[in-house]
């Protein structure tokens, strides 16, 4: 029985590698505000660009950050029903010939091309003025809980390297859920 347990443990360790840098990356500078229509949010992922990911980007591998944003009603200490759940993505691709970075932010529906890697990283890691939910969906003097999480999407490798996802997955990052509570 002990032997069997050891086998299962070993297999599970091999089959589901734990992201190596999950402890370093985290959501920072979360800001919740509103314009005339929507509840807008700002935040920044810190520590996401580890050297291996930077190296992968510089070698031309398209890299995508996924942001998961969820808004809940809050009653006392417990979470109420979910009001909104959104998923947005930021993708970067380096063109070695032109020496520029193309960044696509799904929430902005525009493509930014820059030769400045620092700026490109900033664009990848920052979400600005993202309209999460229409204000009509919120109630005055009610407590809400906003939860944000960022993670590296599966790196799309060119063949035959796509078969090595198994190893590449060690570079994944995944932040903890960042929770911000507020009263509207």
């Amino acid at each position, binding site marked *: 029985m002990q*032997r069997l347990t050891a*086998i299962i443990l*070993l*297999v599970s360790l*091999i*089959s589901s590698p734990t992201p190596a840098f999950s402890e370093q990356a985290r959501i920072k500078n979360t800001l919740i505000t509103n314009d005339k229509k929507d509840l807008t949010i700002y935040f920044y992922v810190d520590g996401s660009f580890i050297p*291996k990911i930077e*190296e*992968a980007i*510089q*070698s*031309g*591998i*398209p890299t*995508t950050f*996924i942001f998961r944003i969820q808004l809940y009603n809050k009653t006392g200490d417990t979470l109420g029903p979910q009001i909104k759940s959104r998923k947005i*993505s930021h*993708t*970067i*691709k380096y*063109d*070695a*010939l*032109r*020496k520029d970075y*193309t960044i*696509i932010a799904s929430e902005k529906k525009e*493509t930014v091309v820059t030769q400045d890697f620092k700026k490109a990283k900033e664009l990848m890691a920052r979400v600005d003025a993202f309209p999460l939910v229409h204000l009509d969906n919120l109630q005055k003097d009610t407590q809400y809980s906003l939860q944000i999480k960022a993670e590296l*999407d*599966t790196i*799309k*490798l*060119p063949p035959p*390297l*796509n*078969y*090595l*996802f*198994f*190893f*590449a997955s060690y570079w994944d990052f995944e932040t903890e859920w960042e929770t911000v509570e507020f009263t509207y």
Partner: protein
Amino acid sequence: MNSDALNPKSEGSSSTLLISFLNLNILFLLILMVLVMRNVTKLVLERKRGVLGARLKTKLVTAFVAFSFVPTVILFILAWGSVSSTMNKWFSLQIEKSLEESLNVAQIYYQTSSEEVLHFARTVASGGIPGNIRNAARQKQREYKVSALWYFSRSGKELAASISNDIPAGILTRPDKDAIKKALKGEYYTVDTLKKGEVVRGLSPVRGRDSNIIGVVVVDHYIPKRLVKRMREISNSFEEFKQHQLFKTPIKLSYFLLFAMVALLIIFSATWFSFFNSMTADLKAGKAGLEEANRDLESRRQYIEIILGSVAAGVVSLDKTGKITTVNHSAEQLLEIDTSRFIGRNYREILSQEQLYLMKGLIRELNASHEDTLQKEIQLKLKGKTLTVMVSITTLKDDKGNYLGMVIVFDDLTQLIKAQRMAAWREVARRIAHEIKNPLTPIQLSAERLQKRFGDKIGDGSEVFQECTRTIVKQVEELKVLVNEFSNFARMPAANPSPNDINEIAREAIFLFKEAHKGVTFQTELDNRIPGLNLDRDQIKRALINLIDNAVAAVRENGEVRIKTFYDDDLRLARIEVADNGSGILLEDKGRLFEPYFSTKKGGTGLGLVIVNTIVSDHNGYIRVLDNEPKGTRIVIELPVK
């Protein structure tokens, strides 16, 4: 840029497949490892305990492992060394440098082109908006040898344009208003992808005399598609190289794991196979042993069957449920049964009510005795015959004392008892003859002397005296006849056979009775096919006379006596039948007919049939008593024809 490349991709099925494959491989390897370890432990323990064959198994396993281990390890080292060195060559510095240099050339081309278009745009813009703007645009475009040159007003309106004749029509597109608006803020360049090729575009604002921006100059440098393609190939090669370099360690690790896994699989499979092989050898040995045991068992079974078949006693075995499992040949003959109809059937279904009662009584008696065997002499009635049988019932038990069934042994004592009785009666007859015959003559002579001497001298009582002495003499005569018969029985002479015609003997015997018994109908049916037989004429005649005498007595002077002879060619038997339509013989008397002094006839000595039986036996014949149809008795004598 290809936007597809930037779309986030969900987890690839190929990756999942790879993970599954790897995990499956690892799992298989672990299972194999566990099995091998288990077998190795078992082998070690077997060796410690000194189990037979453990040493041979160890040698076999060691040989298999050694033969597989050495080449597998060598193959692994060679393969890994080869792959490792090839990969090191792939990612060598020279290749990286040459690829980087190639990319640099391409990058410089773009860089130079962008600097040039920006420089020309700036130079043209510094001249302001000329009077004859169309001619000026054409002149500057030709002077700087650029692909196209545009003048735009501040509002984004095209003032003049000149496109080189070398550029195919419709390829270059006019800059949009956003681009012009951006250029009003300061000069910049872009690289735009066209349907056929790319264009490096430099935009610079045009200032008026008061330094106000009054327009924009746009200068294009067209890069043909084939050139773009070449440069893109260089870029892709470099990117691929960098990507592969990035994954150099994982690739090497994956190859290492693959080779290691294959090597381990071979080694463990060989080890497992060696165990399997030993197991097969064990099985083979086990099978051979089993076959040997089966052969031994079969030969024992046959041996027991032969013994059972050849023993004179009848043997019947029952299993614990009462089903008949064995019936030997003697039992088959004794009980006159067809074995195939009884094997596998329960004795309770087969036996008659009377036989079942007898059987149950024996079993009860056996159980009450607390012994394993019970022996008892019983009278067994079978198809009109009563047999005297010694039954021996033995219960069968295994080593643990569990009941397995029983064996019943029948010993037919009928003939033996008959012979014993016959001997006893002969002894009795001899003694009677001896003891009685001797005083008979003096008694007779004394009675005769008394009659002769005093017969006339006695007065009134002389008649009584005469009558008494006559009676004594007559009775003594009768006693003498009786004693002679006893004497004849006791001293039956040995048969003296010679060739004789049985039909003639039969006719002579009948003749003696025909005249004396007029009321009896004598019918003869003699078969002339009967060849001459070796017979003691007098004895056979005496036997027939005895039988006819019995038949005549049975019909009481008023019936039918039939004498028939028949020759059975197949069995080579001469059959003589004496039948009557008298009252017949009771079933219980039939068995005792051939016993001395047993008679159903009033005044019979009980020796007639005994003598007949003795004569027939002396002639190697056989006598049977049967019921005559529709009534009476039929006695059949069968004599062999040699």
